[in-house]
């Protein structure tokens, strides 16, 4: 294990700050969805985490949020938290957030130049497909409802999630313009270090 493979101070700071940001965003509260799963601004945060921080730190910051929820802090949408959410029907989506942020980061940061369309693709694949790929089967399993029916019911989120992809993409592009330093690859960041 080489030293650069470890999470350094700069990584820890970014992971923690972004996790804190995701928590702050969740305070904005959920819109109770019609199918038992709340529509949450946190998936927007998941897309931003991957797109801005990259796959490693992005996924790590989402994981931090989940860990804090697990140890009993009421930081998920609607002030939920505790171990209950990890044995409930939405547990799979939560795990999907981690993988989703990583996939968003991988795609958005691939290629030499940072382009809007790549971010959009990243958000669709990572922010929707991957999250659902984890969320739907677990929901189906926990609820004892066939996969097809579960999938059908979760398409109700699709409108919201597509909207979130659009918003996340636009935001990412503007943030890239406003603070390009944040997107620099690891190690190449620190002009003053």
């Amino acid at each position: 294990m080489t030293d650069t493979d470890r999470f350094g101070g700069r990584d820890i700071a970014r992971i923690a700050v972004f996790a804190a940001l995701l928590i702050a965003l969740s305070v904005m509260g959920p819109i109770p969805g019609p199918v038992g799963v709340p529509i949450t601004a946190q998936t927007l945060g998941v897309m931003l985490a991957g797109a801005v921080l990259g796959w490693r730190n992005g996924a790590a910051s989402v994981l931090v949020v989940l860990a804090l929820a697990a140890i009993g802090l009421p930081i998920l949408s609607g002030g939920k938290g505790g171990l209950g959410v990890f044995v409930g029907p939405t547990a799979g989506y939560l795990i999907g957030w981690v993988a989703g942020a990583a996939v968003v980061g991988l795609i958005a940061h691939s290629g030499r130049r940072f382009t809007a369309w790549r971010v959009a693709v990243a958000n669709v694949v990572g922010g929707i497909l991957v999250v659902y790929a984890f969320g739907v089967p677990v929901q189906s399993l926990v609820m004892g409802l066939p996969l097809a029916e579960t999938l059908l019911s979760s398409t109700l989120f699709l409108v919201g999630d597509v909207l979130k992809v659009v918003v996340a993409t636009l935001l990412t592009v503007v943030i890239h313009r406003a603070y390009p330093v944040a997107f620099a690859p690891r190690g190449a960041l620190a002009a003053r270090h």
Partner: protein
Amino acid sequence: MISLYRPGRSPLHRLPAEAKLIGMAVLALVVSLWPHTPVTAVGTLLGVLALFALGGFGPREWGRQLWALRWIVVFMAGTQLLFLGPQPALVNTVRVVSVVLLAGVLTLTTRSEDMLDVVERALRPLAHFGVDPWRVAFTLSLTIALVPVIADFGRRVREAQRARGVRLGVRAVVPLLVMSLRHADDVADALSARGIA
């Protein structure tokens, strides 16, 4: 930050966090895999409520916890009634609610700090793979310390909009993020200056 933990001196409160976690995992597994009939399902729910009572939580807390699950209950009962019929609907809904409530008891009776210690201990075997348990625990604490700072950034961005008479809507995330990321760089400097990472 406020935790979901409720201080108390019940037997459940005094049980070590690890023991509770293992116990909960076993119970949750059993409850989930057991081929329930309506009677065993309802019995399980009553058993979980008895655990609440053992932790010193009365009907008010049951109500609060159930209320938090209302969407799950409504949706599960609804779809299952539609697709599977009344008996499976009852059994499945009660089973899921029981497991979620079971986990809730643990959260109510275990301090976040104790859970954090468990996380740190549980990660120790991973040290061989380059995971530093202390760093993980530290990152979690750091996040808790940062939440009010970031929330304050949010408040300032909102105030700036009000003062300037503009509404950015979701675009307000941009200045919030820029401030936050700049703050992350300052925190990184502090980490290295204080010899932490």
